[in-house]
């Protein structure tokens, strides 16, 4: 099995434990502060899984924040103007973002590479321009999406008072997204993505339709990133043109790199949570400390820990592993 395939074998128990703990966490502490760190972390984690998936097809998107803006506005607009419930607008937001990703990808992914990076960067800016200037989006004032409502029988969940309902929604969203991205990565699709990333010319000549899979990855990432934007803006009770911008696109990249891009799910989640939590600490120090720290951190990771935090686990696993895999070289013979 290729050594770069992220694998949950043996660590399924670990994941199950984490998920169970995560479910019971709010019973342990209803501290709004802690939840306010975890909720964005989980939402960013979904955006990060999207970015990492795109990277694992060999492409570099600098515009994921643009999809969060699209998702946020779509959901808020539908909720405010058509009174649709959050549970509908949430998915429509994803679909809208996926559609835009599909169209943009179809135009630019043929060239890929640097063109794709530059155009996605510019695209996020353009989305901001649209959001700032169209009357329906209320310009730079942005507007306030209503909180979700959930009524099951006689039991009504109140999203406006505590953060706990948001915590569970975010957690379920994260789990759903993680399953989807994990499934893609461990299937033939993931293998095709890795092939394209490793050697796209060879892949094409072995029968793989590059465009089809590049656009697929970009659109799926767009779908979940759009939903992440929708959830985040409902959580913040605000959507505005500058909420998700270049800064956020770079943040996603840093989170994924620190977590580790060799892993499709664990790396992005770890990176997102780690940086969301520590980011708060840095922003209390002095203005500017957070970007400085994160910038230095990612440079450090690139040089000294290229596989990200997830690689540390592998290094430790290797130390304790008794398996002998002949991964290094071959005896000189026939």
């Amino acid at each position, binding site marked *: *099995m*290729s*050594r*770069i395939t992220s694998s949950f074998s043996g660590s399924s128990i670990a994941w199950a434990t984490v998920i169970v703990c995560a479910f019971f966490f709010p019973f342990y502490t209803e501290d709004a502060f802690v939840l306010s760190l975890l909720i964005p972390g989980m939402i960013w984690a979904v955006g990060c899984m999207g970015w990492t998936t795109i990277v694992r097809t060999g492409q570099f998107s600098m515009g994921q924040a643009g999809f969060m803006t699209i998702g946020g506005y779509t959901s808020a607009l539908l909720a405010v103007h058509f009174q649709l419930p959050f549970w509908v607008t949430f998915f429509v937001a994803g679909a809208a973002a996926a559609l835009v990703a599909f169209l943009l990808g179809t135009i630019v992914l043929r060239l890929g590479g640097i063109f794709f990076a530059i155009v996605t960067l510019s695209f996020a800016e353009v989305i901001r321009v649209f959001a700032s200037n169209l009357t329906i989006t209320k310009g730079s004032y942005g507007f306030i999406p209503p909180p979700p409502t959930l009524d099951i029988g006689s039991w009504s969940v109140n999203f406006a008072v505590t953060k706990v309902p948001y915590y569970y929604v975010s957690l379920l969203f994260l789990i759903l997204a993680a399953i989807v991205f994990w*499934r*893609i990565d461990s*299937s*033939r*699709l993931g*293998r*095709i993505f*890795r*092939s394209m990333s*490793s*050697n796209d*010319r*060879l*892949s*094409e*000549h*072995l*029968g*793989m*339709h*590059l465009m089809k899979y590049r656009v*697929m990855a970009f659109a799926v990432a767009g779908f979940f990133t759009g939903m992440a934007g929708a959830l985040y803006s409902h959580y913040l009770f605000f959507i505005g043109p500058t909420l998700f911008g270049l800064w956020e696109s770079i943040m996603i990249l840093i989170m994924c790199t620190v977590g580790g891009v060799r892993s499709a799910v664990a790396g992005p989640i770890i990176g997102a949570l780690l940086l969301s939590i520590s980011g708060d600490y840095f922003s209390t120090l002095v203005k500017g400390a957070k970007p400085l720290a994160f910038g230095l951190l990612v440079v450090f990771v690139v040089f000294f820990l290229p596989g990200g935090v997830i690689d540390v686990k592998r290094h430790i696993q290797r130390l304790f592993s008794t398996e002998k*895999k*002949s*991964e*290094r*070289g*071959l005896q*000189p013979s*026939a």
Partner: protein
Amino acid sequence: MALLELQNVSKHFGKLAALSNVSLEVERGEFVGLVGPNGSGKTTLFNVVSGFYSPSGGKVYYNGEDITGLRPDKITSKGLVRTFQSNILYKEATALENLVRASYLHSNTSSWKAFFNSRDYRENEKAIFERAEAALAHWGLEEVRDVLADELPHGHQRRLGLAVAVAADPELLLLDEPLAGMSGEERLVVMEQVRELSNQGMTIILVEHHVKTVLNLCERLLVLDYGIKIADGKPEEVTCQKTVVQAYLGAEEVVDQCS
């Protein structure tokens, strides 16, 4: 009907004519050598036929079908597979993984089924892995099954590259210098395997610098010079042709054969 037919194919890069009005036919089952000095357009020819480039002029037919300018993946799916001079493998993947990836055309389930891990898909995957293991055995690569392609000795890499191409189920195989950099002993082994492929009915066009190899293997030679086809026929006849001798200027092996 010829398996492969080129009609007046030309390829220009700006003012440079890499190919000029090349026409040729290759029948099913032939084993053709494509030779010519450096820069004569052999790789460009492969690039045009495999869809990597669109020709500036002319047409390419495969099995009677016009494949001019089609995407490489579409052309490969029709049974026309080509190899490259360099960068022929997935470097950071194991030998087995390389062969699994190369079996892409053997996947017969949709992406949805793959995502939902349906029974058809799982069976298909199992078949693909078994096929890859079998290929490893066939090409003598079982010991290096889990070795990264990048860490294989050169000869093994070349052999694996050939195995990868064959895994894509070619009807027509375009080999671009598959023996480059191999030791004498390794060359013989691989030459044998290529000859075996031809004996089993595969149509092969071989680009090879080492003239002796080509003379030994191929029943027909095509010679390119400056993008123009200057010879096409039996090796003994072609190598004595004046234009061919002039093109090679100093390939003594060639001249020696002639009376």
